[in-house]
């Protein structure tokens, strides 16, 4: 139950406890037009953990996540998944979108099963899988509803069910709760923790909320302002099995939030 802050001087990769499933090597990204989003970022993401990318808004954390997802190409550097270089999306990685990215013309179950549908899995089979994950994100009974009949929080649960249904090893989430109201968001964070514990997957999580990052993550990667570098890597060790109220009042939680705030404050002006 200690906060150990490892100052990782870039570009050297930080030492990590578990075997890295995703490695990012010397990634830079300059957008056409000259905006430099990322500057020589090297990171390792250990398997089975939830790592958050946290930083001031507009710092390029979503860009980094989309590069790892294969949706964007880096200007320099490479992304390795289990030691193999990747340049495009693959079945071992799934993605939860900030704006949910649900098909408005399709039911909850078709949306949740869409990854499997694209892979050619038979209808009955993929719907059985989707049903299971729809239930596990707490939407049992809503299978035949359409996205516009659901609240924002429920829509994002569909997005999460879709990401889990393809059984990818790595689930990437791009500010998944930012379009969701505060109460729903807390509920969602707790459900996410439960899923992290049961699903044994690697989660990569982008957020701009310090509290959210500390609450859900095993590790937090702090990014500096654009052009982003890795500013600090923080391991968070919280008793996650305990009551959410207790976690949010835990000294470790509060210290971590305060510590990160002190670091991020430098990037504000």
């Amino acid at each position, binding site marked *: 139950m200690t906060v150990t802050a490892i100052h990782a001087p870039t570009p050297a990769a930080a030492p990590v406890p578990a075997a890295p499933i995703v490695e990012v090597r010397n990634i830079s990204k300059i957008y056409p037009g000259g905006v430099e989003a990322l500057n020589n970022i090297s990171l390792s993401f250990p398997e089975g953990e939830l790592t958050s990318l946290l930083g001031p808004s507009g710092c390029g954390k979503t860009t980094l996540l*989309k590069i790892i*997802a*294969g*949706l964007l190409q880096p200007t320099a550097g490479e992304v390795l998944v289990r030691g193999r270089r990747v340049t495009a*999306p*693959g*079945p071992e*990685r*799934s*993605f939860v*979108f*900030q*704006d*949910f*990215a649900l*098909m*408005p*013309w399709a039911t909850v179950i078709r949306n949740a099963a*869409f*990854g499997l*549908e*694209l*892979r050619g899995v038979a209808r009955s089979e993929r719907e059985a899988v989707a049903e299971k994950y729809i239930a596990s994100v707490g939407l049992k009974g809503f299978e035949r509803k*359409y*996205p*516009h009949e659901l609240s924002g929080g429920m829509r994002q649960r569909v997005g999460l069910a*879709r990401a889990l249904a*393809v059984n990818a090893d790595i689930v990437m989430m791009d500010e998944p709760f930012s379009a969701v109201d505060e109460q729903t968001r807390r509920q969602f964070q707790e459900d996410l923790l439960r899923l992290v514990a049961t699903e044994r997957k690697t989660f990569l999580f982008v957020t701009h909320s310090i509290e959210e990052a500390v609450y859900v993550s095993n590790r937090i990667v702090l990014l500096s302002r654009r052009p982003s570098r890795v500013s600090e890597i923080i391991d968070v060790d919280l008793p996650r099995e305990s009551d959410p109220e207790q976690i949010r009042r835990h000294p470790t939680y509060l210290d971590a939030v305060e510590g990160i705030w002190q670091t991020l404050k430098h990037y504000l002006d």
Partner: protein
Amino acid sequence: MEFKGYRIPAMASLVIWAVLWEIVGRLGLTILIPPLSTTLEKLAEIAANESFWDAMAITMRTFLWGSAIAIVVGVPLGILMGRSVILDRMLLPWVNTFISAPLSAIVPVIMAVFGFGETTIILTVVLFAIWIIILDARAGAHAISPSLVEMARVYGASPRQAFAKIYVWSALPEILTGIRLGLLRAVKGVIIGQLLVSVVGFGRLFEIYSSNFLMEHMWALLIVLFALAFLIDLAFGAIERRVDHFASSRS
């Protein structure tokens, strides 16, 4: 609509115009406008005629074929133009030219190549209908949410899957608007095509009626054709409203 507290049915103005037509016709001001009542009588008379139903069959057949070709070619082409900058640069100037060009002037060219048969009429229908269908499908492709495109990529959609499962559906509201406008232009196309070819279908009937100054027959035919266009618009408007719910939730 209400007038002095009374509800007025939506079609009330039609009644007024019909009465006006009847009066002008009865006054016998000009041979060009026969009374509505005799026109309707003539309509019943024409409708009993076999050549009328022949013309109707040709019209429907060429209209359906032409519209189908315009949709099957126009919708994918419009979506591809919306997704590909190169294709867009290549084709957009032509689409914009043809959408405003006096298309009737091109029909004789088609006629010279394809003769005086139904092929020419079908191609005329395509020529009239396809451009607005392309443009609207293109606009629909521009409205596809970028995150849905990314979603398709992340979950491994092939280009064909992305097209059939995401793009077409995303662009559906604009596509349907385009098809509705396209079909209305197709009605023009099918009539103008027949008039210019003038040896088959309604074109032939119009030719016979007008060269013999049979104004009642002319008007009767016009009523049929106008009603046809109106019904097509009505039917498609209804289909369009059905997909409105997801058009509004699309962001």
